[in-house]
Every structure is written in C-alpha cells, then in structure tokens.
C-alpha cells in the first residue's frame, strides 16, 4: 500500500526540477491550511446564526482534520506527495521565526528548566522502552530505534540513529510507523486530558513538548490548547531536539562496542552533524529580538510569518497520516510504543505538575 505516511525519498535531481515537483504539494498544504482558517472563522458564526450548539474549533484542528479526511479517503495523489513532504521544512522555518516571540532571558530560563525535565524524561523513556522491547521480544535494534524515537524527537531521531547503528530499514520503518501513529493519537488525547485536569497553558505546553514525540505533532498538540501553550510546547520540544546528537552518539558507541555498528571517529563532527541547526537559528533570532534589532511591528510580522509556516505544517500532519497504512506495520512495535507512550505521558505529567508547584507556573 503506497500511502502518505512519511517523507518522500530524497533523490539527487536538478534543483530547478526538484523545486517544480514540490510546488503542487505546497499549494495543497496552503489550500488545506487556509481552508482550516476559513472554517474556524465561519463555522462558529454559522452555527450561532442557526442557534446550534457547536464547539469552537480552532484552525489547527480543522487543518489537521481536513488533511486526515483527504489522506484517508481519496488519498494524496502522487503529484502532491513531494510537496506535502516539505511540512517538516516549514515547521523548522516556523520554529526559527518563532524565536522573535521569545526574549533570550526567557529562553534561557524556560530552556534551563526544560533541560532538567528533558534529561529526566530521556533517561526514563530509554530505560522503559528498552525494558518493554525485551519483554515483548523485539529485535534489539528495533528496540533501540523505538527508545530513541520516544525519548528524543520521533522520526528525525529514528532516521539519525538508523544510520549510526546500522539498523535495518525494516526496523526503522516499524519504529517510524509506531511513532507516527501514536503522535496522531496524541493530537486528540492530549488536549482532552489537559482540559480535564484544568492544566494552565504553561504546564500543558511543557507537558506536550516533553511527551509528544514528533516535533510537528508536539507543536500541533500545544497549539490545539492555546497559542501560549503552543509556544511553550515548541520551546520544550526544541530543547529535547537539541540533545539528539548525544543520545544517538551513545547508541552508536553501544552498538559499535558490540561489533554491530561502525565505530565513531570524530565525536565533535558527529555531534555537529546530528545537531538540529534550526535550534541555533531559533536562538539567533531570539537574541536579535532581545537586542531590539526588530521593532515591535516587525516582531509582529515575524510572528505571523511563523504562524503561516506552522499552518502548512499542521495541514501536512493530517495529509501524511494514513491510518490504514500505519495499521499494517505490525502490532508488536505498536504495542510496545503505545504502552511506553502511555507510561511516559503519565510520568512526564507528574513531573510537570511537580515542577509547576516548585516554580510557581
């Protein structure tokens, strides 16, 4: 079944040709995202005019739902797939631009707190997923990939680790499918749990950033709650992403020591290659905003550019998720991922509630 689960293959082709191949898909992302905005603005008004009781659904959810409907009914035609796969590109550009909405002092303060929480989360997630993988008898490298995917940053971490530990592509595919399926479920469960527990924006945003694995889903889960929660979810998730190199390096050492992966030569070069560069971009824009390089109006313009980039991302989250294809990826990796995610979500929720009391969020 060739459906739109993930990223299209990257082939070395003429740059101009590659640009043309992504145009239809990017236009589809824009159309679905904008339709989400139009529905947000009009459905509520229409329901009110007809005296219907209808919940206020934000553009984030509309864009994801429209994408899900297209992907799971008519499917995403081949011509759009390369462009739809750019949703991660827009996500990263959006995160860099979001830096304008954070003063560097806040980034360091919140990032420092997040770093401590992320350290605990990564340690627990890796230990627990490794334990579960053994209990369920998964192949060891598949267990490593699931552990990295749920501990650090979803698909990117799995792809980075697959190369570093010489894992099979089949194992990567299983791990990616499990992480994507669980990420899609988190979009609907996290806001419900957050509202049920009356979490404030700060606590909910940090929790989403800690517990939702893929960056796009973490940003979406945060934005579904509120704009402020979305900002904090992205900041916390970015802190998690920043640690990807260290976790992948540790796994590379582990598998090399067992003679099942190539030894790592230059560690600094390895770390730099794995380090997500958009984290640096985010910090640079935040530093410039703090130094008053941008006027208030310009910061508003950058914030809106960031919102447009995220809009394309949210449309892409829906469009690339095909539940039928995900369900064919094997029950065991999904079960391990699901049990692990529930435990990690519960643990990080407890961690956030404790931090809320300590730091007075």
């Amino acid at each position, binding site marked *: 079944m060739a459906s739109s689960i993930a990223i299209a293959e990257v082939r070395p082709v003429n740059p101009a040709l590659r640009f043309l191949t992504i145009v239809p898909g990017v236009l589809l992302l824009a159309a679905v995202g904008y339709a989400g905005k139009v529905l947000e603005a009009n459905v509520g008004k229409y329901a009110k005019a007809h005296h219907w009781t209808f919940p206020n659904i934000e553009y984030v959810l509309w864009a994801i739902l429209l994408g899900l409907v297209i992907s799971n009914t008519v499917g995403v035609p081949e011509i759009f797939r390369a462009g739809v796969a750019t949703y991660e590109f827009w996500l990263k550009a959006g995160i860099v631009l979001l830096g304008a909405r954070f003063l560097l002092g806040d980034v360091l303060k919140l990032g420092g707190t997040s770093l401590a929480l992320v350290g605990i989360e990564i340690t627990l997630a890796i230990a627990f997923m490794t334990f579960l993988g053994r209990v369920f008898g998964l192949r060891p490298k598949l267990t490593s990939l699931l552990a990295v995917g749920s501990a650090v940053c979803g698909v990117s971490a799995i792809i980075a680790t697959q190369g570093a530990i010489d894992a099979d592509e089949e194992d990567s595919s299983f791990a990616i499918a499990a992480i994507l399926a669980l990420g899609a479920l988190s979009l609907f469960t996290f806001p419900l749990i957050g509202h049920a527990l009356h979490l404030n924006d700060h606590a909910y945003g940090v929790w989403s950033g800690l517990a939702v694995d893929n960056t796009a889903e973490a940003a979406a889960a945060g934005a579904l709650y509120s704009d402020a929660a979305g900002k904090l979810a992205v900041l916390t998730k970015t802190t998690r992403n920043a640690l990807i190199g260290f976790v992948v390096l540790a796994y590379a050492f582990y598998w090399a020591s067992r003679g099942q992966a190539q030894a790592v030569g230059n560690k600094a070069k390895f770390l730099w290659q794995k380090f997500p560069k958009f984290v640096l971009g985010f910090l640079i824009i935040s530093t410039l905003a703090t130094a008053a390089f941008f006027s208030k109006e310009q910061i508003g313009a950058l914030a809106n550019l960031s*919102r447009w980039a995220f809009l394309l991302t949210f449309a892409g989250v829906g469009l690339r998720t095909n539940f039928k294809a995900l369900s064919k990826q094997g029950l065991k990796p999904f079960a391990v991922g699901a049990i692990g995610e529930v435990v990690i979500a519960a643990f990080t929720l407890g961690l956030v509630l404790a931090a809320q009391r300590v730091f007075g969020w």
Partner: protein
Amino acid sequence: MSEQVQAAVPAKQRGFSMDAWAVLLAFVLAALVRAGVFKHIPW
C-alpha cells in the same frame, strides 16, 4: 510494508541539509522584514 515508510529513510544528501535551508529561509524572511520590504504580514 509500505513503500512510503521505507522511503522515509532518506538517501545520503549532498550540500545543505533541510534544516540548514529552513534556517536560511527564516533568516532571509527576517532580513526582508527588518529592511521594510514586508511591512505587515496579515494573519
């Protein structure tokens, strides 16, 4: 197994990574906003 899931593991890339291109685009947009080319971005 889905072909698309297998294809999620990218072939070795040359030149800039996707991350780097995204950062570059964001910087170019920020520079254009700073230079006053884009004065107001509606939402």
